[in-house]
């Protein structure tokens, strides 16, 4: 065994191989020291082997931690997942001795709530499953393990409630997972792209770090994907409305949270349409607004020497760079960027006559209402949507904006998330036999 492993890992310096002997037996042990907890190897193999309190061969047979591994082709892969290989009497066993470096008990950072669980999923698969299982203690919870990535062979689990899950969705997901052919997967975002979100304008799968969101999703019959090394779970299928629903909505005062949901939808509409509407109303249809308002808007633009769409492009460029800069900067100088950017945007640009003061209000409303969306991958998707809408606004004014919105509406209604309608009002998640479109298609 050892020779064979040595040829496979020819260049790996962290490969540890040893041949041990006691009175009766010779065993061979091989593992990758960098991936393994060597004290575990000592406790499980070396110590009992040399102490010989029980015959070691019996111990290996009786201890379920030692699992038979007959296929030599799987040796390398198994070792790369942090297992130690043990050869005894011509049989090969594997033993899980993995040591995984990860964040300890992480707090939720991306999707924060005021009152609600503060712990996030872990970067280690087993810990994540621990967190989920302890919150969803049901024997119906099924856990299916696979690997994805031709090179990385990243461990991945599918979690679902086998009683509630929609069988067609599950088949759909399994079929898609079979066809993944990318070499490596290091983050859930890559998996989301490979599963079919690459060219979509809207995410059809939700990425979340929150265990409570994961558990409610399992309860709703959805499927959860967990990837080793990433603290974000993928929930699928998802609808548009799920993305605008924060977990707080279930924890806080009922009426206020309903208002917040309405507010979020309004914010989405505003952040998508406002730049386009500004162009349309400034350059095409100033008669739309009442005279006083039109005059004051036009008055604020008197110093601006170019058409409104140039102004919009300048300001959107500024605000997008500001957001991008504050994401990329280290935390210690992050606040500098916002202060400088805010000052320039808020005061100087307007006083210099580069942009109108109304445009500054428009820009801030666009940016702020974009941040209202609770799930991050929807928030970035919506951030993009205002740009295509600028084109019809530049050429056709307010009617162009309406046409563009109708196109978005059709696009949204046409999306399916793993066979489920994505943008359907009052639709039940689970398919009912009396529902529309549920005709038996023989």
């Amino acid at each position, binding site marked *: 065994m050892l020779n064979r492993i040595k040829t496979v890992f020819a260049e790996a310096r962290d490969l540890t191989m040893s041949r041990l002997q006691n009175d009766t037996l010779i065993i061979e042990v091989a593992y990758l020291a960098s991936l393994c907890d060597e004290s575990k190897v000592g406790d499980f193999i070396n110590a009992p082997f040399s102490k010989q309190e029980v015959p070691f061969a019996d111990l290996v047979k009786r201890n379920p931690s030692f699992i038979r591994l007959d296929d030599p082709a799987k040796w390398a892969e198994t070792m790369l997942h942090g297992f130690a290989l043990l050869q005894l009497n011509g049989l090969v066993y594997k033993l899980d001795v993995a040591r995984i470096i990860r964040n300890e008990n992480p707090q939720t950072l991306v999707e924060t709530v005021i009152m609600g669980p503060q712990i996030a999923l872990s970067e280690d698969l087993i810990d994540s499953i621990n967190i989920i299982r302890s919150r969803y203690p049901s024997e119906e919870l099924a856990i299916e393990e696979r690997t994805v990535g031709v090179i990385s062979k990243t461990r991945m689990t599918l979690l679902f409630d086998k009683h509630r899950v929609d069988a067609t969705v599950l088949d759909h997901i399994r079929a898609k997972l079979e066809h993944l052919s990318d070499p490596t997967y290091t983050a859930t975002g890559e998996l989301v792209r490979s599963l079919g979100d690459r060219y979509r304008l809207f995410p059809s799968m939700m990425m979340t770090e929150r265990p409570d969101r994961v558990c409610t999703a399992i309860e709703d019959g959805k499927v959860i994907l967990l990837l080793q090394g990433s603290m974000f779970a993928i929930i699928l299928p998802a609808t548009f409305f799920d993305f605008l629903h924060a977990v707080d909505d279930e924890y806080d005062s009922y009426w206020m949270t309903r208002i917040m949901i309405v507010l979020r939808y309004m914010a989405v509409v505003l952040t998508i349409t406002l730049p386009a509407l500004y162009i349309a109303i400034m350059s095409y249809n100033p008669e*739309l607004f009442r005279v006083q*308002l039109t005059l004051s808007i036009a008055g604020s633009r008197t110093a601006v020497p170019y058409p409104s769409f140039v102004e919009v492009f300048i300001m959107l460029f500024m605000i997008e760079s500001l957001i991008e800069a504050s994401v990329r900067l280290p935390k210690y100088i992050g606040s500098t960027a916002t202060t400088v950017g805010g000052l320039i945007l808020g005061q100087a640009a307007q006083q210099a006559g580069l942009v109108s003061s109304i445009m500054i209000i428009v820009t801030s409303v666009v940016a702020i209402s974009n941040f209202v969306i609770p799930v991050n991958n929807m928030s970035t998707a919506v951030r993009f949507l205002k740009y295509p809408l600028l084109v019809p606004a530049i050429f056709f004014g307010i009617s162009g904006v*309406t*046409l563009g919105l109708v196109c978005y509406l059709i696009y949204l*209604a046409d999306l399916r998330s793993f066979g489920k309608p994505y*943008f359907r009002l009052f639709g039940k998640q689970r398919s009912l036999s009396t529902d*529309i479109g549920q*005709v038996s298609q023989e």
Partner: protein
Amino acid sequence: MNRYFYYNVLLLGLINLALFVPHTLIQYRYTGALMSMACAAVSGTVLAILFTHVMKTFPGKGIPEILSLYIPKYASIPFLLVWALTWLSASSLSLNTFSVLINRFFNPDTSSMIVLIVMCLTCMYGATRSLLTIIFVLEIGLIFSAPIILFVFFKAIHNKNMEWDAIRTVIQYWKQMPRIKPFAAASFAFTGYINFFMMNRLLSPNFRLRFRWLIPVICSLALLISFFVPIGIHGTEESANYLYIWSVTSDTLIMTYGFIERVIFVFLLMYLVMTLIFASIGWLMAMEMVKSCLPKAKPDIDPSRTPRSNWIIVSFFAAMTVAYANWISEKENFEITTYWIVIRSGVEIFSVLFLFVLSLFAPKAGKPKAGKKLEQ
């Protein structure tokens, strides 16, 4: 899923304003419009009820599938093509009319041709989608725009310029005999059910339509408002002078406290949304009918990938619409629309009666329940 049926009813009830229906009716206000409307209400409701019986008899089947139960495929092709042409013309005429309106009120600097082309592109996108998609679009579009349109109606009725005497004057002519043209125009508002020629494919076998009384209520209200409110606001004589009567009527209204002062802008934008959805549905219906004429056609309510044939057929429709707008002037368009409305209502009455007769001779298999209900 009753609501999807009534969305269609409501859409047709509201969209009639965009297709010269109130104008045609007002032309006949002294000579039989009221009686024609009453007749249309009765006949429209009866046809709708007859058609719901057809729907119940053939659950989950579109018209092509129903026809194929009785007659061979080559014989059903002429029927399907005539229906396809009816839906195509409905959509194209409304698009054409609305592109002129947009050109008048929003984009006076561009030509209505360009506006029409852009609208056609949007509708092409909508019409190439699946039946299931378009019904979701309809739902969201209506939930978004119908309240605002109803608000405009409400505002119009409660307008202090509304002259109820004018309305009473017109009502006094109710004894006049009904005429064909206003009858056909009024019956257009009652044809919401007709989209279920194809959308019936979406309904599950155990679907039962409830609240049928809503059909006459929704449609009659829409028709009465669209006929009487312009008369009340513009007067008995003056109201006949406007072609786009409802645009002018909504322009008499003012929102005192909003960003937007003139109601017409809101009204037209909402109607733009509705017209686009209406036209997309019409083209989609026509496209499905043309497609079912093709050999090897297989109905699919929600294909995962848009078939290329969808795009080919619908771009042909769009080209026809643009060509029509290019060759036909606005005045001719109006003339043609009024004649078209008459022909359309003939086609509707004939085809619904035809289908009803077919449904009476439906194959008995798997249908003992319906028979029992009739006996009780």
